[in-house]
């Protein structure tokens, strides 16, 4: 058996994949690909690593890791700072984030934000997004009390001072369901086309694209398989994730997986595919709102070319 493994290791190409956060259902496809041997079939030996405090982008950009998880928002900013990372697949087709508040706060539409307290992390993008939503209903972000809630989680924050916050439904929203907390949720996608950006995405760096395109292809082939498996078998996929990362809360993973599985591919023709329009929309929106120093050249920012051919 010993011989066998050494032999295998020799023939496998080692690559590192850095996550954006702690492992969660956004990453299920990766863990499935690993557990089901999809990577191995492609001749890859993938190590999935948690990120440092500052996320994956710089590590991927520097080439220390071949692949990472990012988000369109961060990647847009990174590329305008000349950080050479590229998005090669969208993990989820549509933005599942939005502004959530416990039902008893009575916030049912962006107009209700006026006079309430929003808890965020102090980034300029938050005010801009809030404003985009509120303007559609004739309200203004000026009337919202924005508070930085730092590392506090949603549930803690809404217990105290905070009325609503920006969450990903697929994780925090599901946790609320499990806790029997009724949430009111305004999804970004419901209010603005431009805010329907890709989050999360799988990233690599420009050097990889130039020098090791086959590796990227192989990697994405396996990952696609993984996500497709998760789409078809949410329960088994959840089991795989729990098995791989037993420290996660089982119940939350299962519930979240069930909610998220249909959203991976959604209305797209294929898992992972990205649309130029989405990149352009969001970068325009950011630029309009003074969130970027210069406009993004969407050309280099993402590519679909490494996604597997569809059978």
């Amino acid at each position, binding site marked *: 058996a010993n011989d066998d493994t050494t032999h295998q290791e020799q023939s496998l190409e080692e690559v590192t994949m850095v996550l954006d956060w702690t492992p969660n259902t956004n990453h299920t496809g990766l863990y499935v690909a690993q557990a089901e041997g999809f990577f191995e079939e492609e001749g890859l030996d993938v190590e999935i690593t948690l990120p440092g405090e*500052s*996320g994956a*982008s*710089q590590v991927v*950009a*520097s080439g220390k890791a071949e692949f990472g998880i990012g988000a369109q928002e*961060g990647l847009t*900013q*990174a590329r305008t*700072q*000349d*950080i050479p990372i590229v998005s090669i697949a969208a993990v989820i087709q549509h933005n599942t984030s939005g502004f959530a508040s416990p039902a008893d706060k009575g916030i049912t539409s962006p107009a209700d934000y006026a006079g309430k307290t929003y*808890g965020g*992390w*102090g*980034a*300029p993008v938050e005010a801009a997004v809030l404003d985009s939503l509120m303007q559609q209903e004739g309200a203004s972000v000026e009337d919202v009390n*924005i*508070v*930085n*809630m*730092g*590392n*506090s*989680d949603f549930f*803690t*924050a809404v*217990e*105290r*001072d*905070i009325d609503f916050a920006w969450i990903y439904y697929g994780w925090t929203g599901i946790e609320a369901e499990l806790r029997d907390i009724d949430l009111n949720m305004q999804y970004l996608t419901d209010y603005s086309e431009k805010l329907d950006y890709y989050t999360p995405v799988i990233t690599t760096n420009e050097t990889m694209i130039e020098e090791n395109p086959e590796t990227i292809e192989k990697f994405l082939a396996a990952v696609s398989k993984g996500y497709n498996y998760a789409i078809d078998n949410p329960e088994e996929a959840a089991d795989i994730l729990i098995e791989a990362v037993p420290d996660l809360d089982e119940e939350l993973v299962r519930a979240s997986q069930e909610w998220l599985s249909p959203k991976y591919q959604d209305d797209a023709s294929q898992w992972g595919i990205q649309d130029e329009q989405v990149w352009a929309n969001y970068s325009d929106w950011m630029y309009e709102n003074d969130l970027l120093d210069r406009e993004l050249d969407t050309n280099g920012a993402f590519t679909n070319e490494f996604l597997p051919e569809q059978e």
Partner: protein
Amino acid sequence: MNKIATKTVSPILVIVALLLIWEASSRLLDVPAWLLPAPTVIVQEGVAGWVNYQHHLLSTIRLSLIGFAIGVTVGLVVAISLHLLPTVKQAFYPLLILSQNIPIIVLAPLLVIWFGFGVMPKLIVITLVCFFPIAVSTLDGFRQTSYELMHYMQMAGASKRQIFTKLELPHALPSFFSGLKIAATYSVMGAVISEWLGANQGIGVYMTLAQSSFRTDRVFVAIFFIMVLCMIFFGIIIALEKLLIKGRVKEEKV
């Protein structure tokens, strides 16, 4: 005069030398600015962005000064009360150590629930960081009081309080300053960390935002100011130490 001059010049020389090496290697090795910007790049951003971050700076200075003051007070009070009440010391000393092992991320939600997002939880965090070295060093200082002088005080019928104020306290002064130096060093970082609890301004906030928008140059501007602040604090402590312990030479010569 000359001595003081060399004393300040030589560390500055070292720092300048390090900066030069950094600048040179940045350029020669072509290190991308998003990873490690060259000092000149940082200076440029520091000058250009001054109006953007000066209010952050002020806010952090205020926060760390207040927090440090509270931390020192708490550290002293803890050291003194544990010293004067040996049974309490026995019972509570372990809690001191435990207090340094509560990760901020865990404390954060509790502090927020109890104290909201105001300045209070931040001061608690800084205090928690600063008080410990002071308490431990000062306690050790109390413990090592000169036997001979202690004998004299006891024979002279000094009360516990007199022994404390006239012997133990002045004797522990150098140890207290040891702790103070360590605490001063941590205070600014403590303030920055506390801002991650949720603040609307401060160098910590400025830094996280810079970090998340990949403005590494700004991150380094923030670090630069953290370091300068810290050096100033440290310098003040050393000056105070000189002032208070001057005239007093090594005890054992007596």
